[in-house]
């Protein structure tokens, strides 16, 4: 999968390939092998290979259990750096806040700061539109039922959050294909609420 990731004002082209149990992540042409594990919904443990002298001792060796082939003090040193990283939405800015130790980097994925809005915005593309909760809150009212036809900008769900009621609206004309919440239910940021298929057949 390809991503455009913006951090500190610089856009980086990132390509992720899956290898056996690990990932190969290419950032602007520099590829590194990465082992990534979820600790919880906001936390990742990353082991990132940083080959120094010889590129033959790779993380995939390490991850797939090295056979102790006798100890020979060769010059190949391969740093496999460990990071515990939290990735959390940055309020309603649409950015992600990625914390590495006590340092935090604001990151935007695919050049969109407001991916929260984008997710239910009136953007192009024929895929179904997914209305997600922009912040933690409570469903005050679900205004549409499965199968209902909706028009662009029509309110579909009212969410109470930060002491305010927020109307979430359809980005375009379509048919409600999924309703995942009901009145009174609590949701977390990013929680999928409603899916709307484009009015024209896909």
């Amino acid at each position: 999968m390809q991503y455009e990731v913006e951090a500190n004002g610089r856009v980086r082209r990132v390509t992720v390939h899956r290898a056996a149990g690990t990932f190969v992540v290419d950032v602007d042409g520099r590829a590194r092998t990465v082992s990534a594990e979820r600790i919880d919904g906001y936390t990742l443990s990353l082991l990132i290979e940083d080959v120094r002298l010889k590129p033959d001792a790779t993380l995939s060796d390490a991850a797939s259990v090295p056979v102790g082939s006798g100890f020979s003090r060769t010059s190949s040193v391969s740093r496999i750096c460990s990071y515990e990283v939290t990735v959390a939405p940055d309020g309603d800015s649409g950015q992600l806040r990625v914390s590495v130790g006590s340092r935090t980097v604001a990151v935007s994925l695919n050049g969109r700061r407001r991916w929260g809005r984008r997710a239910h915005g009136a953007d192009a593309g024929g895929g179904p539109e997914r209305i997600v909760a922009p912040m933690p809150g409570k469903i005050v009212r679900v205004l549409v039922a499965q199968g209902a036809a909706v028009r662009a900008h029509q309110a579909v769900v009212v969410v109470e959050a930060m002491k305010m009621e927020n109307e979430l609206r359809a980005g375009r004309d379509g048919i409600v294909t999924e309703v995942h919440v009901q009145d009174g239910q609590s949701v977390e940021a990013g929680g999928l609420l409603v899916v709307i298929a484009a009015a024209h057949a896909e």
Partner: protein
Amino acid sequence: MQLHKILIANRGEIAVRIMRACREMGLVSVAVFSECDRTAPHVRYADEACAIGPNAPGESYLRIDRILDAARRSGADAVHPGYGFLAENADFARAVRDAGLIFVGPTSDAIALMGSKTAARAAASAAGVPVVPGTTDPLGPEVSAAEAARLAAGVGYPLLVKAVAGGGGKGMRTVTDPSGLSDAIRAARSEAGTAFGDTAVYFERQLLRPRHIEVQLLGDEYGTVLPFVERECSIQRRHQKVVEETPSLAVTPALRRELTSAAAAVARAVGYTNAGTIEFLLDEDGRFYFLEMNTRLQVEHPITELVTGVDLVRWQLRIARGERLDLPADRLLAPSGHAIECRIYAEDPDNGFLPSPGRILRLRPPSGPGIRDDSGATEGLDVPIFYDPMISKLAVWDESRPAAVARMRRALDEYIIAGIETTLPFFSWLLVQPAFLEGRFYTTYVDDVLRHRNGQPFTDTSEQEDVAVIAAALQAEMSSTSEPDARSVRLQGWTARARFEGLRLAATRE
């Protein structure tokens, strides 16, 4: 005196701190809470709890009547005010005692006396302790401009116009030359009137690059007053302490004897009981001046506890129930090792330290050797917008100052707080600055640095940038539902998945 159940008229970390002392002493604790604090840590920690009103402090934590009513309903026999809110309100202390309850603190007379900055200065002078040069009497609204100008000239410029009833930097203005005097007085009076209901001001000469050095005291009800090794609190932002340490690099053993004797003399002169702190300014020539007295427990009390082994809150309660202060005086002045505290705030240091309330999505405080975290926050809950946005007081102890600084850096690095901005990056930056490491700082050091940096972010993330970019891409990648990765069996809940599915979809559409 019987002391069995104690109502803590406060919230947040200090309420929890006091309840911990209660629990260790076998005392029953009663929390009070405003509407938004129903699920706050201090309510969950307490043995009992009473609602006292809406969120605004003026409708709950500052309502003497409601707090006394809660004490009556719960059957408490004592009230601890913590710090802030009603802690230095002489009327509150009096009302608690009039209701037949123990007030854990000094007499209301002592609170009232020290609450007037000019009266406090006079008391210090009378006890033979130097005060910052300035005017002696309050300048009420009747004082003419000409008279004010004459008094100001006597003090000398630059000077500070300060509210007599002031505190926390409110009602305070700096004047560099006579032309700015009238405006400064008008502004200070206006602010003081709003904040304290008293427009009286006085003048104080502004010292050049002073340090803020303070002396913790305990006094019992039998006339014993004991001072503790000094605290260095010069790292301030807009008159608010943000880092404290003890002992101070600027205080020699000889100066420590002088400072602590002076502090004890002032306290004895006013018949001070329970815990209190006398603040001094220390100029570049090593001369010190009485600044004011805080007639309550101080935010930064943990560092004193760490280097002396004395539990100050436990002693507050012991003194309040009539015990004698039988600590060895010399031990309190001989610190073991070094302690530092950082006040972790929900503020964005890269955005002018604006408050950053919101939900704490992940919270994992540091631990291991030499770490003490006094926290008032919990994962999953909001930092309320109505009160001081302090998340925790992070304190470390180690055998020396360099070791303590290294340990604090380790602790800051371990602290995980996701979901809101905090002052952690600022402290990580500060704790590698040569001026900090060498102890070359003064009360406006941080403000000067901030002015000089002019918004430049504290968070230098060049080293972490690649990691962050990789993490963001992988977080999206791993949320793919076609995910064949056999090992990521630990995903919690559907929300992260849903969120990052959204990301992935956005990605594929590009």
